[in-house]
């Protein structure tokens, strides 16, 4: 199935590498806005069709793709989505736009495919919501969950930086919606250390009384094994441990090193999720086409 990528920064470039490897997807357009974009130059060298007209390139030639990955900014997505929805495209939104249907592939992939504008929430959301969800299965009475994430400064491009409020908002909403917890709090820190740090996530989950840490542990490790199927670099660094009314679990995501080096697991967790959705979409379309 043919896909277009709009947004040629870190996320768009990492997506391109993953799409190129996919058996089901073919990148028919890599579009941005700036003619001096390094991403565009690299894509052109790889023989990919490029454009500096961003979404307009698709609006001019709607037949160029069935799926559009939007890796621009939340503000731009608000402009891109309506005309693309009209054209009946699947839009996989990698910005924290507060729009569209929130998707965590492990939890609602099937349902997401009934929607056109599918939002991938955020890197913090993709890496932590499945864990929060697994935790809430064993501690449904928990009312408060907190996520503190650190990413390396090098992995945070201009789009990520300008959308830091939107990141907080959308990750918080995602945790609440998927895990069912009453209130979530989300924090993000950028760290400029060299060599760069891996993406790092700590979940703090308040409990009522001492929980069954054995079951929590089992549920969390199970869900992480499932996450590894599409993002192999996800792993537990420490925990889960229980102390003073809270369970703490620290995880990290090592990237595949496709576009940015391996420290940028925050890119991979998003782009892997987006590619899984796109591939599922391609398979579904293929089956629909094959059915008489």
């Amino acid at each position: 199935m043919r896909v277009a990528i709009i947004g040629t920064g870190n996320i768009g470039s990492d997506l391109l590498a993953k799409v190129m490897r996919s058996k089901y997807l073919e990148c028919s357009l890599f579009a941005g806005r700036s003619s001096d974009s390094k991403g565009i130059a690299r894509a052109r060298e790889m023989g990919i069709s490029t454009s500096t007209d961003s979404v307009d390139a698709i609006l001019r030639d709607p037949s160029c793709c069935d799926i559009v990955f939007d890796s621009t900014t939340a503000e731009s997505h608000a402009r891109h989505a309506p005309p693309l929805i009209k054209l009946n495209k699947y839009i996989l939104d990698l910005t924290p736009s507060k729009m569209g249907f929130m998707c965590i592939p492990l939890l609602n992939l099937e349902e997401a495919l009934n929607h056109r504008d599918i939002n991938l929430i955020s890197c913090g959301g993709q890496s932590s919501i499945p864990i929060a969800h697994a935790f809430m299965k064993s501690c449904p009475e928990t009312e408060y969950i907190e996520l503190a994430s650190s990413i390396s400064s090098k992995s945070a491009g201009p789009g990520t930086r300008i959308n830091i409020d939107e990141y907080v908002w959308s990750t918080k909403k995602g945790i609440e919606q998927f895990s069912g917890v009453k209130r979530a709090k989300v924090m993000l820190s950028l760290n400029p250390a060299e060599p760069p740090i891996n993406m790092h996530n700590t979940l703090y989950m308040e409990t009522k009384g001492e929980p069954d840490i054995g079951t929590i542990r089992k549920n969390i490790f199970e869900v992480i094994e499932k996450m590894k199927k599409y993002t192999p670099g996800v792993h537990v660094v420490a925990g889960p441990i229980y102390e003073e009314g809270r369970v703490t679990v620290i995880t990290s995501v090592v990237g595949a090193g496709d576009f940015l080096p391996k420290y940028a697991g925050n890119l991979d967790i998003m782009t892997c999720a987006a590619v899984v959705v796109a591939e599922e979409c391609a398979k579904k379309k293929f089956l629909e086409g094959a059915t008489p």
Partner: protein
Amino acid sequence: MKEILIIDSTLRDGSHAMRHRFTADNISQYAAAAESAGIKVLVVGHGNGLGASSLLIGKSLLSDMEYIKIATKELKKTKLGILAIPGFATVKEDIEPAINAGAEVVFVTCHCTEADTTQKHIEYVSSVGKEAIGVLMMTHMLTPEGLLEQAQKMQGYGASGVLLMDSAGATLPHDVMEKVSALKNGLKIKVGYHAHNNLGMAVANSLAAVEAGATFIDTTMRGYGAGAGNCPMEIITAVLHKSGYKTGMDEFALMGISDGIVAKFMKKPIEIDGVRLASGLAGVFSGFCPIAERAGAQFGVDPKEILMELGRRKIVAGQEDYITEVAIELAKKKGNSGKA
């Protein structure tokens, strides 16, 4: 005679020393005293600013809005300041309501290399006619040229000044002078300094900053604040007067507040103990000290070792979760499983 603006962050940085447990009485009593002493800007709230009350850093006794409302009641001429770190505080949920509740000066804060995360927040504050001061934390980790580049971004977003924070209390006076001079020469807006006393340099560094051209100094009464505390307001005021600067403050009035109010609500005296000195040497955020002490006790490791390791990894403010992680690793190395 040159006039230096003294900012009062007792009810903000002091929140760290108080383990974020300032009571409503503490706030109203101190705010009333600050007003009567002629403090120009009083900064209030959680030690890491709006939206930072959390399991990660420490939960505040009262909400940000409660602190702001209690303080505003006591203030007339004194302006209420708040601190906001993007990644913790958002414009919609934190800064806008705080301004609506009476905040007039917003210290928009980030790690010293990440000024572009503050753009929307600074722009918002200036767009509603309030004063935005850009704050660069952990400035011991960046060169003067690097700091200037970041400060220029904040100036471009509309900040009325840039405050350099020595959050780890790791800087010596000659470095302060170089950094402040670089900003002074390269910016059109005012430059300020915020010191910590982990290496015993808070007053010396603040004076050095003023001599290099800083026109505002961020202080706390009696030095009450994170780590080994801040630059004590009553002392720097006296020292500045002695050096021929004006502050518009009366050091004896400040001494009265220091002895009469702050000494009474302090959890314990501010001192440079081994853990605080180590945090200055390690170059880690001063607010890490009590969390490292707790993790050290829990996992049976020396908090000083935890801080030194965090320093080697260049962990910055907001990454308090690494404290537990490092404690667990050090405990494992020692073959000590702690309580976990």
